[in-house]
């Protein structure tokens, strides 16, 4: 899984840490009926967008 994440991150030109981070966030909330993760993911994307100008 770890290797595949790195491979896909490279292929789609995104930081592997971003992909790992959002997967982790989803893992933690997968059991919740209301995940409310859209704003959180948006925040992470904003951070990365600011970092990779």
């Amino acid at each position, binding site marked *: 899984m770890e290797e595949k994440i790195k491979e*896909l991150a490279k292929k789609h030109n*995104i930081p592997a840490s971003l992909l790992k981070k959002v997967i982790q966030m989803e893992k933690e909330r*997968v059991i919740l009926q209301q995940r409310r993760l859209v704003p959180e993911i948006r925040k992470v994307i904003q951070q990365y967008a600011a970092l990779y100008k």
Partner: protein
Amino acid sequence: MQIKLKSIHFQNWKCFQDQVINFNLDTVVTKNIWVVFGDNGYGKTSLLQGILWCLYGVKAIFPDTRQQPKFVTFFNSIAVKENPSLEMSVILTFKQGEELYRITRVVKRLVRGNNVNFKQTTFSFNKSGKEKPDTKENIESLLPESCKELFFFDGKKIEEYAKLTHSKETRNAIEQVLGIPEIRNLIDDTKKVRKEIEQEFDNISSTKNELKKVSQELNEIKDNISIKEATKNQTLQDLQQERIILNALDKEARQSDEAQSKFDEINKLEKTESIVIKDLEQISEKIKTSFRKAPIYLLSGLVREIADEIHTKTLINNKQLADTSLLEKLIINDECVCGRCIDTEVRQYLEEQLEKAKNSRHLYKQAVDNQKLHTELSMLCRTPSPDLELLLLRRDRLEEDLTETEQAIKKLKQDTDGFDRDSIKKIWQKLYQQENALKQKQDQIDRLERDIEELEEEQSKLQKQRKKLASQNKEAANLSRQSDIADRLYQAADELVRWQIDNSREIIEQYTSEIHQKITNKPEEYKGVRINQDYTLGIKQKSGDIVNPEEINFSPGEKETLAFAFIAGLNQASGKAAPLVMDTPFGHLDPIHKKNIINSLPELPSQVILLATGEDLPQNILDDLAPYIVQTHVISRKGDNRFSSVIKIE
């Protein structure tokens, strides 16, 4: 990482008044089995129910809500007599790595007049000494309820996993163990984020015409790509189904092909059969005739004698007839052959003799008859004697040939049962149609892929264009970057989920096949197990065919073995290795499967807790398991009371 059950504490739970069961986890890694022995009715099932109740509540024991009031009978009867409003609890402690998880569930017995009810008073989740909120969610993340039958089961329940089709719940449970829902959720959430960003982009670009135009075009293309992607995925799924149908039809067609050649063989054999029947009739007729003529051959000596006698008589008669003719000539000529005249006395004598001879004219007829009879008898004597022995031998051979042919025809007819020439024709027609349908789907997918590729190229151009336009405005530039990242994240997640499903299936298939090969009683027939797209199971035969367990009439034992291999393979593939608690493990299985399954338990990466009777685990199996058993607990009773079970380490 392995999750292990460390202890169970029952208070007033069914037959256990106050019972702690500690599972010693400080053990060598090669040991993974804990055995809890107990006779029937001593509390093995109560123990399993206690675990399920503590984790998932009353519905895990009584899925039907109308049955749930019966739960009041779970309070220990002896304790209830002393305190009718007592509490009942189960506390479970799990260990995962260095973390300890303690789950507590307590209910209070409520008595109002004649009504007895219960109320939950505590339900908590403690992680390494700290109480955590969201008890249910925490349990779900540790041991998801939908997967409970994959961890805590009796032998019979797991047969479900060898079914032809799975319910949505079963598929979800399997995917949950494999960690697929979180990536599916990521796709959904990223899609929503993308939409949100685009919305904001629309808002800020409304005053900038060119940016707005590019943005709108881009959104249209994105929507178009999404629609085409969805259509492609649906078509891919359809294609899978069509392939399954095609494979089934192909197999049927191959069988029908065999049936066709068998039909030809039947035709040939039927022709041979009719020839043999004709030959047999002829030979039987010859034998019959031979038997009819048998007296002739038996009496041939006598017949020959009679013929000779008749011949002699005929000769005498002929001589007499010649004499008469000579006398008549003498009388007419008046002169003897010697030249002397015939005098009166001689004439008189001759006339007397002639008269006598004429009176014997009947001799002539007799001579003719005799001659005829002699000829017939002579012919009879000349008739060659038949070789009856040879005829009988030939008849026996023909009868054997006929029996063999009939048997061959019968077998071929059995083999071709269910087929007729029309149905074979229909199967081939269907196969042809199915191949066409498959080709159409494949063409559709190819077209969609080309379209998507073109749209993506267009999308890329527009994105660059938008980026350029957006760079003139800080906020727009920032949103453009966010949109770009969200797009890429979405694509990566989409690819990841597909990889994850395929990869997990391959890994489960490998583990399941290895385990199945060890526990099946027919390792020489099967090569492994196939995990289908929907997680149903197929059997790979040595011939290379993949068949459905239902198609080859798997016995219940074989189904259970297959399902166990799947659950164990799933557990191994998930990397989670949850504890497996098995109640009366495979008690109803045949001895070979039972021994094979139990012998495979030490190889599982999970903690295995067997709740068994002495019959479930006889001494020979226990001896095999002994090197892998960490502890043996024994359930006994205090006195004769069925509500006072105690568990002790042996």
